[in-house]
């Protein structure tokens, strides 16, 4: 049985001359991110565009950025990642971790999980919110 490639879908939006935000969920119940730290150490999970310098959205006529913070992200487009739930599935001790998230402002990746625990554990990550700012219509 084949498994579909993981993907995150944003809803289509009819917009006018205003800045709108579309949201999608990364790590749904059917597409959980499984992560583990089987040996004493830490694990870090980052997310970035495959080609950070040039990747963007397009409606066929105009391209919109994902990492432009101008105009609170409304000028050219910006994506923000926030939230997320860490559900430990294995391991005796609760690991020390943070889930910073953040907004793309440059070619730098955004950290989804940062763990420095020295104990073995496994967990599932779900419920990250990907918020994409729609740009003003030209």
């Amino acid at each position, binding site marked *: 049985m084949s498994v579909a490639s993981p993907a995150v879908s944003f809803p289509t939006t009819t917009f006018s001359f205003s800045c709108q935000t579309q949201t999608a969920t990364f790590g749904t119940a059917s597409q959980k991110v499984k992560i583990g730290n*089987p040996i004493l150490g830490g694990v870090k999970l980052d997310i970035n565009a495959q080609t950070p310098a040039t990747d963007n959205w397009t409606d066929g006529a105009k391209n919109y950025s994902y990492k432009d913070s101008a105009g609170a992200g409304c000028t050219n487009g910006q994506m923000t990642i926030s939230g997320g739930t860490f559900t430990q599935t294995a391991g005796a001790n609760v690991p020390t971790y943070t889930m910073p998230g953040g907004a793309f402002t440059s070619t730098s990746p955004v950290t989804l999980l940062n763990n420095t625990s020295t104990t073995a554990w496994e967990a599932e990550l779900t419920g990250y919110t990907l918020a994409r700012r729609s740009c003003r219509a030209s």
Partner: protein
Amino acid sequence: MRKRLQTLGPLLVVSILLFTHASVFAQAGSMGIAPANPLVGNLRSRSIFIHTLKGGETVEDGVRVFNYSKEARTVKLDAVDSIAAVDGSFSCKQNSEKKTEVGLWIRLSVKEVVVQPGANETVPFTITVPKEAGPGEHGACITAQDTKNIGSKSEGGIALGFRNAIRVAITVPGKIVKQLNIKNIAIGRNDKGNYTVSPVSKNTGNVSLDATSRAQLKSIFGQQTPVQKATYPVMPGATTGWAFEFKRPFWGGVYKAQVSIAYDSDTNTYIGDTTGQERKVRASTGYFIMVPTWQALVVEIAVPLALVFILITFLRRRRLRRLAHKRLQKYTVAPGDTVMSIAEVHGIDWKQLAKVNIIKAPYLIEYGQTLLLPQPKKRLRHRRAERKGSWVVDDASPKTPTEQPAPLPGVPQPPAVAPVAPENTWQAPIAQTQPLAPVPQRYPVPPHIPNPAFPEPEEPDFPDWRDGASDEELRTLGVLKDSATMPALSSSWNLEADEPTSPKPKNSTRPKVVKRKHHAKLRLSAQHARSDCRKF
């Protein structure tokens, strides 16, 4: 112009970087990678590549690729430059980005390897440090990605790709600077309502530091929360931090955050080595308010409000009592007055009269004493002519004179007294066209009418002890037994007749015996008055 945004075509394709900087291996998509040749005695080298190389030196190393799936995997390998993530932590550039730094120092023997299911393959690589490389730490990453995990652009959103990466730390010896400062401490609240303390530190040195950060909250009264600790690497030149979460205290309070960050300050040691030479930097915030839980908030608001309400009510009642005392009529006790008689005359309850004037049993009052007359609970209009025994309830009905009760047989009737406009009726003043007739300041004392039903006992005539009592009188009083005879009293003041005394001087002043007849009369009058009341 309304336009429908279509998320079509070459959209954002995101790759997930599963990156390990301290664990033994990285695993994603049923595959993993790990250093093939860890350093002896350095546990960190089991998770990341650690090398100390001079300029121009070359070292050989290898990366092991694991396949945990049930089918053969084709894995793409690459070396890329490091980059700081948005939060300042260590991260790796994408494979599509051009190598400009340490990524160029690493050369993999192969870029792609096929790993059989359940097996692993070691891929050698070399690290060559340029001669002009400056002292300090230089970072890079070795990445491994299953070719099946490379996402493709799709409609309606983003496709996800997964890859693994291992940190490569290359330290060029020379002037090593280990310096870390705390820039600020951010206080915030997360979605769960708890407070986060995020110390932000900057590595101003040229090597990475494994910083052990500790955070604690301290209340204004000295209470402290448990210390929270985390150890994380801070890259040279990077500003990064850690968010510590503190549960919101039930009662809230005023707290400040205290933070300390410790790191190994020995410049001769590198990643994974500790000598115990620790340097600690400290910082704290000012006091801030931690909001209590809603349950505590209810108590903290309700209790003071209740106390304030009680205090206001107490003060208000006291003020009303004082005002009431000022408005109360005053009455001066005349001879023959009793508590009961005064209450009857003024149409008030004798118990209330006693309570207001704090007169306790046996309810004795003195001539000339000033009493406060409380307002009657029921308006009873007392007419002097009706003081003999009838009362009229003051209601809306027209006033009609009531019948006088039948006088007691054999009881002499007091002279008729002309009705006098009652003074203390406590009614709202009515506009008068003619001046009111003057009224006496106090009511005359009603005459004492003996009640034949309760004959007054005769007051015993106590003999003057100075005159000496006869034997018969003594026997009557029960002092002498039958045949005993009281020895005669000496005419002298000194009753001890055995001792010779000087004769009593003439014209001496003898102490007077004050007979408390008035006291007894008052007591009997009270009893008599109570008996009259029982008729009604």
